[in-house]
C-alpha cells in the first residue's frame, strides 16, 4: 500500500456494489447488565428472582399453598427442624451412608476398571457381566438387598455402592484404554518396564477419566442413599422427606429437600474444584 490512501476509483453510478463495512452492533462489548449476571454472585440473581416470585405468588394466593408453601415458611420449618435437634443427627446418618456407599462402590470399581483397561483377558471376562447388569435400574434390586442385609442402614449403603460402582468402573477402564499409545512407545524406547509404564504413563494419563467417573459416582451415591432411605429406612434425611410427605407436613418436606439439594450441591462443587485444580493440563494436548 502507498503511504497516502489512494482516492477511490471513479465508478459508473449503475455499477453493482457489495459492501462489507463497519457493523457497530457486532463490535459492541457486552454491556454492564450482562457482565453482572454472568459474574459469580450475579448468577444468583435468577435464583433469587424465582424465589421472590414464589414468595409473592404464595402470599397473594396465586399459588396453592398446600403444594407450594411460601419459601419463608419453608425456611422457618428448616430452622425449627434444626433447633429441635431432629435434623442434624439425620444429616450425619445420611452423610455417613453416602460416604460408605461411595467408597464401597468406587474403590473396587476403580481397581477393576484399571485391570480391565490393562489386560485383555480381564476385559473379555468382566465386560459381558457389566453389560448385562448395567441397564438394570439398581433401585429395583432394593427388595433383594433387604432380604440379604435385613433392614437398617446396611442395604442402603450397599445400594449406594452398587449404583456408584458402574460409572467408576466404566470410566476407569476407558481412561486406561484411551491413554496415548505414543507415550507408551516413547517410555518403552527409553527403557521403561511394565510397572514404570503403569505408574508413570498409564495411571496419570487415565486419572482425569477415573476422576470423572468418581464425580459421577459421588452424585449417584447420594441418589442411591436418598432412594434407599425413602423406601427402607426409619432414619436419615431421605426418610424424613418421605415421612413428612406421608403426614402431609409439606413445609417440613421442602425443608428436608433443601438439605438434600445442598448436599448434592456440595458434592458437585467440591469435586469440580478438585478437577480444575489438578487436571488443568487436559485442556491442551502433548
Amino acid at each position, binding site marked *: 500500500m502507498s503511504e497516502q490512501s489512494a482516492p477511490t476509483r471513479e465508478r459508473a453510478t449503475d455499477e453493482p456494489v457489495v459492501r462489507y463495512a463497519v457493523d457497530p452492533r457486532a463490535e459492541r462489548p457486552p454491556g454492564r447488565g450482562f457482565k453482572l449476571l454472568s459474574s459469580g454472585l450475579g448468577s444468583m440473581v435468577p435464583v433469587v428472582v424465582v424465589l421472590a416470585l414464589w414468595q409473592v405468588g404464595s402470599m397473594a394466593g396465586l399459588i396453592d399453598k398446600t403444594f407450594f408453601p411460601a419459601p419463608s415458611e419453608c425456611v422457618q420449618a428448616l430452622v425449627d427442624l434444626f433447633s429441635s435437634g431432629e435434623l442434624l443427627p439425620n444429616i450425619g446418618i445420611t452423610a455417613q451412608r453416602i460416604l460408605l456407599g461411595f467408597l464401597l462402590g468406587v474403590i473396587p470399581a476403580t481397581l477393576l476398571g484399571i485391570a480391565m483397561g490393562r489386560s485383555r483377558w480381564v476385559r473379555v471376562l468382566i465386560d459381558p457381566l457389566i453389560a448385562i447388569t448395567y441397564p438394570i435400574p439398581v433401585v429395583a434390586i432394593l427388595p433383594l438387598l433387604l432380604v440379604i442385609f435385613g433392614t437398617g442402614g446396611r442395604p442402603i449403603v450397599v445400594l449406594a455402592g452398587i449404583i456408584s460402582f458402574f460409572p467408576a468402573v466404566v470410566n476407569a477402564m476407558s481412561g486406561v484404554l484411551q491413554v496415548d499409545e505414543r*507415550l507408551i512407545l*516413547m517410555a*518403552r*524406547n*527409553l527403557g521403561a518396564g511394565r510397572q*514404570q509404564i503403569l505408574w508413570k504413563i498409564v495411571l496419570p494419563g487415565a486419572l482425569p477419566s477415573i476422576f470423572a467417573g468418581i464425580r459421577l459416582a459421588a452424585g449417584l451415591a447420594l441418589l442411591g442413599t436418598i432412594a434407599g432411605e425413602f423406601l427402607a429406612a426409619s432414619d436419615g434425611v431421605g426418610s424424613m422427606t418421605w415421612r413428612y410427605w406421608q403426614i402431609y407436613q409439606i413445609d417440613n418436606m421442602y425443608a428436608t429437600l433443601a438439605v438434600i439439594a445442598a448436599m448434592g450441591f456440595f458434592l458437585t462443587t467440591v469435586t469440580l474444584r478438585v478437577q480444575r485444580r489438578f487436571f488443568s*493440563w487436559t485442556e*491442551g*494436548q502433548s
Partner: protein
Amino acid sequence: MRIEIDNVAKGYPRADGSRLSVVGSLSTTIEAQEFICVIGPSGCGKSTLLGLLGGLRRPDDGEIRFVGERTAAGPLTSIVWQDYALIPWRSIADNVAFGLELRGVPAARRREVAREHLTMMGIEAFADNKPHELSGGMRQRAGIARALASDPEVLLMDEPFAAVDAQTRTLLQDELLQVWSRHRKTVLFITHSIEEALLLADRIIVLGPRPTRVVEEIRVPFPRPRTRDVELDPRFTELKRHLWAQLRDATLAAEWAEAKGDR
C-alpha cells in the same frame, strides 16, 4: 557403537489374513558417530525401520546388531518423535529428565542434567511450563533435549521437523547441526526432504518402495562444520537432482499402490 542391519524383514497381517511385507530383506551398516539420513517414498517403511531400531518391534527375519563397547550411560537408542510425544501433565523439565528418572538417577542430578540440556536447546525459560503451553518448535526442542539427556548410544529421529512450519524448521536444522557437532552421537534421521538430508547427513540411505530395501547409499561430500551455505555448492544441486530422480519413480509407484488399496 556400530549398527549392523542384517537382512531384516518386517511385515504386518492384513485384515484379509494375508501379510503386507513392509521391510523386505534390508541390509546396511551404520558406523559409530555417523550422521545418517534415510529418505524414501512415503509409506515405504521408514518408520517401521525406526521402530525396529528403537526396540519397539522385533524383525520377522534377520537381525539388528549393536556392535562395540558401550560409551553412553543411557539406553541403546532414544527416539525423537515427529509429534513430540511429550507427557502432557509433566513440566518440560520433568519431560526432559524422564529417561533419567526411568533408570533411577537421583532427583538432584536429574534436575541438573535437565537444566543443562534445556539451556543447550535454548528453552531453559520454559522449564516449568507444560507442553501445551509451548509452540511446536519449542516442543520439539524439548523432544530433542529429552532424547539427548537420556544419553543413548544412538539418536533416532523420525521426521522430527515435519510438523513445524518452514521457518522454524530452518532454525531447528541449524540448531541440530550445532548440537550434534558437540555430541557426535550416532544419528539416524528419517526425512522426506532431500535438502534436509543433504544439509545434515554424512551419508544418505535411499530406500525403495514396499517391501523396502536399500536402493542407494550416497556419501555427502560437504565438509563440517556445515552451514546453510552448502546449498550454494554446485554439488548440492547435482546431488539433489540425482536423489529426486531416484525418489520420483518410487514415489509415483507408491502413490499408485496406495490408490489401489494396497496398504
